[in-house]
């Protein structure tokens, strides 16, 4: 349990330090190009698809499974749209420091989730979904949308935002059952 809390905290700190919009110095925010933003968007969605796959495999709680299936469907839909758009715009998503940080954090989190079972797993999964969506929403609002140059890519990110917010509300609703 302690390990999980530490990992969640570490992951939150990583995301916070990458994405925090309240930083006094705007120069601390990562400056991303459109191909890098496309990479961050696809990676962030894929990470949540991966978490969902673990939940569907490990949990037997219907609320958790329902939520995880929705995450899988919705985030795969966004990846599909982003990939299609990147092809249309001849943009090749470019890996960058933010993508790498996301992947590093996810690796740790997946390891922790895989070490849990039963109620402990359900709580860990949904707690992470709440924290993850909060961080990603902040990143999309304060970094990805403002820094995107291409209008179609910007429009896609704007369209994705309501679904992320609804996912967060849904996660908070499920989380109440695991306090």
């Amino acid at each position, binding site marked *: 349990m302690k390990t999980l809390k530490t990992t969640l905290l570490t992951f939150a700190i990583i995301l916070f330090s990458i994405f925090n919009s309240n930083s006094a110095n705007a120069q601390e925010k990562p400056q991303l190009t459109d191909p890098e933003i496309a990479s961050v968007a696809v990676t962030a969605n894929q990470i949540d698809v991966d978490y969902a796959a673990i939940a569907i495999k490990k949990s037997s709680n219907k609320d958790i499974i329902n939520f995880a299936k929705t995450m899988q469907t*919705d985030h795969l839909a966004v990846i599909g749209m982003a990939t299609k758009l990147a092809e249309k715009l001849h943009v090749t998503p470019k890996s960058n420091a933010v993508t790498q940080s996301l992947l590093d954090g996810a690796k740790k989190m997946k390891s922790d989730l895989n070490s849990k079972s039963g109620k402990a797993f359900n709580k860990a999964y949904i707690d992470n979904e709440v924290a993850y969506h909060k961080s990603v929403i902040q990143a999309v609002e304060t970094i990805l949308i403002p820094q995107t140059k291409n209008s179609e890519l910007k429009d896609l990110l704007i*369209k994705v935002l309501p679904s992320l917010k609804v996912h967060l509300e*849904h996660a908070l609703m499920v989380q109440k059952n695991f306090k």
Partner: protein
Amino acid sequence: MKKHYFWVGLLSISILVFFSCKNTNDVSSNESNTTNENTKVTPNIFQVSISGMTYMPDTVTATIGDTVIFTNNDIVPHNVTEINNHWASPTLNPGDTWKTVVDSSSDYYCSLHLVMKGRISAK
């Protein structure tokens, strides 16, 4: 001979009057039907767009017998599920439509995104 012409004329006039009255009755009957059909209430059709993770409008006030058509204009799949599961749409992928005929007031939600809610208020 004159008498003969008289009776033939009278018969012709009687026939004309008969058919004339019959046609008049027919017309008034048709008009009456038309009037009845016109006074029949045509069911209304209401459109609900699913967009930006909301049902728009989120409340439809309709009369029993009206139709509500849901169109998924969003980027992810949704559905329309009555809160007590009395009725439910299949999964609506982006671009899909589904309709229901109003038979009572209903609260509904998306079972894929539990916070999405709407209402059909039947008059």
